[in-house]
């Protein structure tokens, strides 16, 4: 086992984390809305300690899908910028960025954050597509939770652009906000050795053996799950992690 992991494990077994935090303690969280008001329809910056993520929403008009003629749609994309972490590389999307985007997508979609029916402009002909792009600017761990919080904040911030002569007048926003109906948020709980922690730093992530990302609604209902990591989890582990996430997402929601 490598020396850093050994160090993290020894410290955790003594109840200590690398930066002196409690196991269930997030770093300071900052949510800022409207960071690119001239170019995007909605945007947000989220900082969790040193980790910083920016998220922008662009709206597009497309033809509805044939099986959902009266609904709009949501697209989530994440790009792990090489600027934010020396391990990230330019080029086609790495599996890490695909997983990040799909996990955030699943939380928002299954949690019905946006009322898709209200994104329909004309049944079978036109719908709004909400495109959410997530970019980390500095990765010091826990991109999952920062991205989930940032995506929801940007969606909350977004307004419909004005349509004139059948074209979107980008840059001219209406007063109408997106139809946000629920606030699903994700908390990723990590198991390292026998300890459970939230909001890992980079060395903790590198030492992590299993993680479970849990999307939770306002009333404590789970709406999406994603297990990661090279080790398995027992039923008791899963139950414990879900309890932690229900508690921590309520706390995270306070920052919106």
């Amino acid at each position, binding site marked *: 086992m490598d020396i850093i992991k050994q160090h993290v494990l020894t410290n955790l077994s003594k109840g200590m984390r690398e930066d002196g935090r409690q196991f269930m303690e997030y770093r300071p969280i900052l949510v800022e809305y409207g960071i690119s008001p001239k170019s995007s329809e909605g945007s947000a910056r989220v900082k969790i300690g040193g980790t910083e993520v920016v998220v922008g929403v662009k709206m597009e008009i497309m033809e509805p899908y044939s099986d959902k003629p009266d609904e709009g749609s949501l697209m989530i994309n994440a790009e792990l910028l090489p600027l934010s972490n020396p391990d990230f590389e330019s080029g086609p999307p790495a599996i890490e960025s695909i997983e990040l985007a799909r996990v955030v997508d699943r939380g928002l979609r*299954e949690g019905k954050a946006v009322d898709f029916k209200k994104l329909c402009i004309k049944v079978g002909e036109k719908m709004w597509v909400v495109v959410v792009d997530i970019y980390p600017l500095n990765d010091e761990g826990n991109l999952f939770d920062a991205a989930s919080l940032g995506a929801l904040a940007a969606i909350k911030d977004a307004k419909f652009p004005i349509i004139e002569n059948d074209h979107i007048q980008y840059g001219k926003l209406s007063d109408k906000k997106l139809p946000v109906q629920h606030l699903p948020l994700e908390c990723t709980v990590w198991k390292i050795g026998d300890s459970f922690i939230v909001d890992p730093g980079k060395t903790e992530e590198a030492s992590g053996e299993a993680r479970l990302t849990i999307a939770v609604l306002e009333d404590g*209902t789970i*709406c*999406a*799950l*994603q297990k990661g990591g090279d080790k398995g*989890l027992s039923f008791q582990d899963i139950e414990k992690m*879900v309890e932690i996430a229900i508690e921590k997402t309520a706390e995270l929601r306070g920052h919106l």
Partner: protein
Amino acid sequence: MNYKERYDGRKVDELRPIEAKVGVIPRATGSALFKIGKTHALAAVYGPRELYPQFLQDPQKGILRCNYNMLAFSGAGERVRPGPSRRSREISFVMEKALLPVIDMEAFPSTVIDVFVELVQTDAGTRCAGITAAAMALADAGIPMKDLISAVAVGRMGGNIVLDVTKEEEDYEGGMADIPVAMSTRTGEVTLLQDDGDLTKEELMKALHLAKKGCEQIKKVQIQALKNRYKGE
């Protein structure tokens, strides 16, 4: 609205008919076919073999590389566009993580074990069928494993928790959650867990116990298929 009678008449804790065969692709180091209802998954293992480009090698342990793919004609609706999609890449990734906990990769430093999973026909539960087939193919290839991995999707249909959901059930309008689970039934470790859809904590725990029951039945079929492969003439 409540979902009491299942569309195909199964009990809530009943699997679709399952069938497994090991050694279906003679060129491969190990291979298996797993059918669960109308979902048919083929898995082939090549390796451990040399890994190139060389910088990908890990001198401490071998690398497991999974590739999940749906054949173009395997979907229920339109033709599936060939080649990797975001979905298939994520599934390949979670399949690796689902299988890794039972494989001793340190026995094969600097090598790769390639697992190719092809879906010939699909009716939901494809990642689970793929993992189940891949576990048999790995065992067939003689890779040392602590246990087999068995997988099944459970679902919440209205107020009921049901085992082994079909596509028709996935599309149920009355509110459903789709929960693919893979596990080592011997150690009780869950190695794949995902969920799409609303669930309470209690429903999740109930779903996990039901998944375990399903996985235990699937494992018996996996073991029998492996035995059939190696019994004398």
